[in-house]
């Protein structure tokens, strides 16, 4: 190969970092004047033709793209991750901070009804579990977080979640506390197990 090795490296770097395919004019503008772009591209195209990604020309522009025979590798991952909805995130956070907690209490804190789907999603993620029943009329089920939750969020212990003051100090909270939930948020002890509660 007679092409300049430095020029090859430059084209490689440019095409690797480019946010869109580059045409030969784009490349010529960035490379030294004596660079023989067509020869470089020919050499590179050949060089990458049997790699996991190839240099391809689409609509007159060059880009590195996954080898067509390997595209199956990228397939099923695309759908495997879902984001939690805001409502689900909030519900999860409330359960984590206030566990054991009943459905009604969650609704009370959020100020809106809890749709069935939300709890389902959190169950599916394996992050919450029923913990027992509150010994109050109706014996409502209480919920808490799971070990998977701790593992996922890298916490040793549920007590490691920052408290209200620390959230504030970290700039995550902007308003003053309402005082409504003082006993829940500012106590420095770990939320003790609800004595009224039977663990299952």
């Amino acid at each position, binding site marked *: 190969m007679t092409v300049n090795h430095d020029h090859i490296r430059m084209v490689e*770097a440019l095409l*690797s*970092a*480019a*946010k*869109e*395919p580059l045409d030969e004019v784009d490349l010529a503008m960035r490379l030294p004047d004596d660079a023989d772009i067509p020869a470089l591209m020919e050499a590179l195209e050949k060089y990458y033709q049997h790699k996991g990604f190839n240099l391809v020309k689409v609509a007159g522009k060059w*880009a*590195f*793209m*996954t080898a067509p025979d390997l595209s199956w*590798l*990228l397939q099923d*991952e*695309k759908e*495997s*991750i*879902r*984001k*939690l909805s*805001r409502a689900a*995130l*909030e519900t*999860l*956070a*409330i359960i*984590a*901070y206030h566990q054991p907690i009943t459905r009604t209490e969650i609704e009370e*804190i*959020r*100020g809106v009804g809890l749709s069935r789907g939300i709890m389902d*999603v959190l169950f*599916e*993620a*394996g*992050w919450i579990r029923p913990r027992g029943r509150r010994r109050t009329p109706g014996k409502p089920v209480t919920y808490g977080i799971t070990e*998977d939750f701790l593992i*996922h*969020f*890298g*916490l040793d212990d549920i007590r490691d*979640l*920052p408290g*209200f003051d620390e*959230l504030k100090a*970290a700039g*995550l*909270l*902007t*308003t*003053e*506390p*309402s005082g*409504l*939930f003082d006993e829940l*948020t500012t106590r420095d002890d770990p939320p003790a197990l609800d004595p009224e509660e039977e663990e299952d």
Partner: protein
Amino acid sequence: MADKGGLFDQQKGFEVDHRPEPPKNALVVDLDGYEGPLDVLLILARDQKVDLLQISILQLAEQFLAFIEEVRKLRLEVAADYLVMAAWLAYLKSKLLLPQEEEEGPSGAQLAERLAFQLKKLEAMRGAAEKLFNGLVTGQERLLRGMPEGVKVIRHSKFDCTLLELLTAYADQEDRKGIRNPLRLMRNAVYSVEAAMQRLERMLGKLPDWVELSAYIPDNITDPFTRRSAQASTLVASLQMVKEGQLELRQREAFGPISVRSKSGETSGSDEEDI
């Protein structure tokens, strides 16, 4: 202090800081340029041009006290932590100068050593920060693939959620609670028990004998939710009126229709117009 110019020059190391450079006029001493008393001490200490662990703390203390003196001449208020540092250094100075006494606590020399060490630590962190940002910063010195086709990281759980997102969600929640007396919008689609009672009272006299309770439900309600609430409220209203002795209720079988009639001998409230 004649060395003020050189003193400010020390601040040039950090490129990312775009705070305007303090004027090099030796008469202008601006505390705003410093990050607290330790910062001033570190800058002063660097003038001694030796390893920080070898500096003369006595000389440093004198320099700092002179510096504070200077600042106070020009500006009345000096932040409290500078004064605390000044007082502490004055104390340290006296400890270093006076002959060693038998007493509790660390000696002057030990304190001086600790101060030198703390300055060394701060200097180390400054240097580290600089090196960090001058290193192989991703997105600057090294670029990731510009146009990835999209293999996503295979997470070991199905849902993608970071601790920060979780904390933010909780914080947002707490934030919203911070609003006192939030405006609550009542659902006006509910047919209240009061309304049902008024209607029953008004219509009682018009319909003699047993009539199905459902006949008393306004028939212009189309919304299914409101309709169900009207059914419930009418039933509750009728029960209340039975209790008050105005009505009689009858249900022949479980889940069967409920009939109602005005209790004999009772006059209904009024018999004016219908709705």
